[in-house]
């Protein structure tokens, strides 16, 4: 039976198990929207700007483990979407993005709303396709979903010329996807796994350094089992938060530029560092020569190109985190740990406990002005660490990472690799759409929120009761912090005076707006927000001079953490060590 191409696309989505599509229509994709008119079983969520469709698909994907799907038109819609694609690329989020394209005979003709879509998204996607024949639709869509979710997950883009969508064609649906050029390796090398197990048991000062790959591979249970079995402390990257409970006795919480003192000290002094689904990002390593200088490094990753990219690895293991960790647990069980190593590990944990005691995460309390860290702590308390937490990018993101007590995976959504401001609200919509009954809280900054605040309209019309807490410090706080500490207080282009009035804007969009200015009002306001069955914007006016500590100046060694508002000498030292970005 022949169907119009547009209808074939929708049938394929249904067969792939897609239930929600985030999109925005336009000329080139009108045939799909026409087919959607009476197509059953697909919910379409109309966003207000195309990047939001991409971010919402990311939120949906991260929350469910399934592929997120977005659909936008040609030209400007595709260029708007690029940020979200690159974001998903950096954070390994599986999404499939469909864009419209001008009819095949007009491609290259500088037609209306034409752009070289696949040319533009090539470096921002894991793979992309331009469909040139209707009978390729089924096989291409099948491959697109397969590529997005297998191996190291990532975004795949499918460009659909309008004539292909209109013309009738057979639906060809391959039962299995086989690609001779793409066969990711899932099982780690048994010999290497054995070497890793021995190194971990032999170690006196081991640390597990865990990234987002553990969440992508759903390997959190295996990670916990391994950590408890070997009694090795665990630190996570920004993307790995939730892979290991923050309150666990073995947890060191986050490492890196704004990581905890004890995580950075532990990694620095470690003798065996086990990286699992993490990629030694510069925000984690700081100065690479000074990163874990004494450690034998074991690296488990599904992507061979992540291994020995930034840091030379001693025991590389290419494979799926879950399968490798499972094998590693078995290997550890078969080996014996000698008494000296066991005693060494005990002393190591005692040393870490001392670091934790000496330098916990902390801030100064004030009765007059709200401290942003306090707001996060109260959100964490009032939700018992069980809410779905989404953030924008900036200081609030780091405070959320530091002060929220994560209890489980797939409940933390943040733009780690690309650092996309404006990521918060649209991503939260995707999470809320995937989990209508869960409490979804977008912790955002006043600068970051402004980049996608139009999506309040989507929240209202699509009944997505996302709660947004704006940590409002009247400016680009992270930039202010860098200018204060590294650029000698030469503040430039950072002030966002209290415009717009977020309460009024929320109301204009049909949402509920709340504002607090005093510490005593914080808890009642959060309670009120959480009990409101509608999208809420809670504008929290906080201390604008607060900085995120600890802080490793870019390009500095992780042991050069700044722990408190610095003196002039420290600032000058930071300015001198400023070799990074």
């Amino acid at each position, binding site marked *: 039976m022949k169907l119009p191409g547009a209808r074939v696309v929708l049938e394929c989505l249904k067969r792939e198990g897609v239930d929600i599509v985030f999109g925005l229509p336009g000329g080139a994709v009108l045939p799909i929207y026409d087919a959607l008119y009476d197509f059953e079983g697909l919910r379409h969520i109309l966003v207000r700007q195309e990047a939001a469709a991409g971010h919402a698909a990311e939120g949906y994907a991260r929350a469910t483990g399934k592929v997120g799907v977005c659909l936008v038109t040609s030209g400007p819609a595709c260029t708007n979407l690029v940020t979200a694609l690159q974001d998903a690329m950096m954070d390994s989020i599986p999404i499939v993005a469909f864009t419209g394209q001008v009819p095949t005979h007009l491609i290259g003709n500088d037609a209306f709303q034409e752009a070289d879509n696949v040319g533009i998204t090539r470096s921002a996607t894991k793979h992309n396709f331009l469909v040139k024949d209707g009978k390729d639709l089924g096989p291409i869509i099948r491959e697109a979903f397969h590529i997005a979710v297998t191996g190291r997950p990532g975004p795949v883009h499918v460009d659909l010329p309008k004539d292909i969508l209109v013309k009738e064609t057979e639906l060809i649906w391959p039962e299995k996807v086989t690609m001779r050029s793409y066969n990711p390796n899932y099982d780690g090398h048994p010999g290497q796994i054995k070497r890793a197990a021995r190194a971990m048991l032999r170690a006196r000062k081991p640390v597990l350094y865990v990234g987002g790959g553990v969440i992508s591979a759903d390997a959190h249970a295996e990670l916990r089992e391994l950590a408890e079995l070997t009694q090795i402390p665990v630190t996570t990257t920004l993307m790995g938060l939730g892979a290991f409970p923050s309150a666990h006795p073995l947890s060191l919480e986050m490492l890196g530029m704004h990581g905890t003192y004890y995580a950075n000290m532990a990694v620095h002094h470690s003798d065996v560092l086990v990286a699992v689904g993490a990629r030694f990002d510069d925000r984690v390593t700081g100065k690479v020569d000074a990163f874990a200088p004494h450690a034998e490094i074991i690296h488990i990753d599904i992507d061979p190109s992540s291994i*020995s990219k930034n840091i030379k690895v001693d025991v590389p293991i290419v494979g799926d985190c879950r399968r490798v960790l499972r094998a590693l647990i078995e290997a550890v069980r078969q080996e014996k740990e000698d008494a000296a190593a066991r005693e060494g590990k005990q002393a190591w944990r005692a040393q870490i406990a001392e670091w934790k005691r000496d330098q916990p995460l902390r801030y100064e309390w004030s009765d007059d002005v709200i401290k942003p860290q306090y707001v996060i702590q109260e959100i964490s308390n009032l939700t018992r660490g069980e809410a779905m937490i989404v953030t924008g990018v900036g200081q609030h993101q780091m405070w959320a990472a530091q002060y929220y007590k994560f209890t489980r995976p797939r409940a933390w959504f943040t733009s780690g690799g690309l650092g996309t401001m404006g990521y918060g609200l649209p991503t939260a919509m995707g999470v809320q759409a995937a989990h209508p009954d869960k409490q979804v809280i977008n912790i955002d900054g006043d600068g970051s929120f402004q980049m996608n605040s139009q999506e309040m309209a989507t929240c209202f019309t699509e009944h997505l009761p996302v709660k947004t807490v704006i940590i409002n410090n009247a400016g680009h706080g992270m930039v202010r912090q860098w200018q204060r500490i590294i650029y000698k207080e030469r503040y430039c282009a950072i002030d966002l005076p209290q415009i717009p009035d977020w309460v009024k804007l929320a109301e204009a969009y049909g949402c509920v707006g709340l504002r607090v200015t005093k510490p005593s009002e914080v808890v009642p306001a959060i309670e009120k927000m959480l009990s409101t069955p509608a999208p809420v914007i809670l504008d929290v006016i906080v201390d604008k001079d607060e900085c995120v500590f600890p802080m490793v100046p870019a390009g500095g060694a992780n042991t050069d953490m700044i722990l408190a508002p610095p003196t002039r000498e420290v600032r000058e030292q930071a300015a001198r060590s400023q070799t990074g970005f």
Partner: protein
Amino acid sequence: MAGNGGEPRKHTVSVLVENKFGVLSRVAGLFSARGYNIESLSVGETLDPSVSRMTIVVTGDEFVIEQVMKQLHKLIDVIKVNDLTDDSHVERELVLIRINAEPQHRAEIMRTADIFRARVIDVTPVSFVLEATGDEGKVEALIELLRPIGVQEVVRTGKIAITRGPKTRVKRAPTSRPRVSEDPRVVGFAD
């Protein structure tokens, strides 16, 4: 991870790719996006028309080359990546040289061409076009010898290479696709 991967040197990397549009720009884009320099790149069909082979010459230290290989392999359309540098292989390059051929120089040009097993493939009253194949050193040497006479233009193909051992095989694609050269829209194939 620059700086500790030993001395940079030239590598000849052979890449088997799906013969699909856009593959060349994926490979070229990878090099430019990651700051690697391509010295030369040549592409051609293999015995299996659904597979093309790219021969890429790239300079880098051990770590750069390791990343180049891994990143190439990561591309979805790449089937196989081989660094031929330390394997037993032969490499050739083809060069076309247009040179001033005033009567007093003709004999000398012919003699030089003869030594290098180059051929004169076009003649005008004032110029010759020479064709030569060889490894990089031979091609360079020929150009250097002819330069004083007045070389007008040089066109080089870039290096292609083949291993001397057991030959690389690729499973045939399940469906045979039409050869590019049979496509009526494609013009400009020599034979």
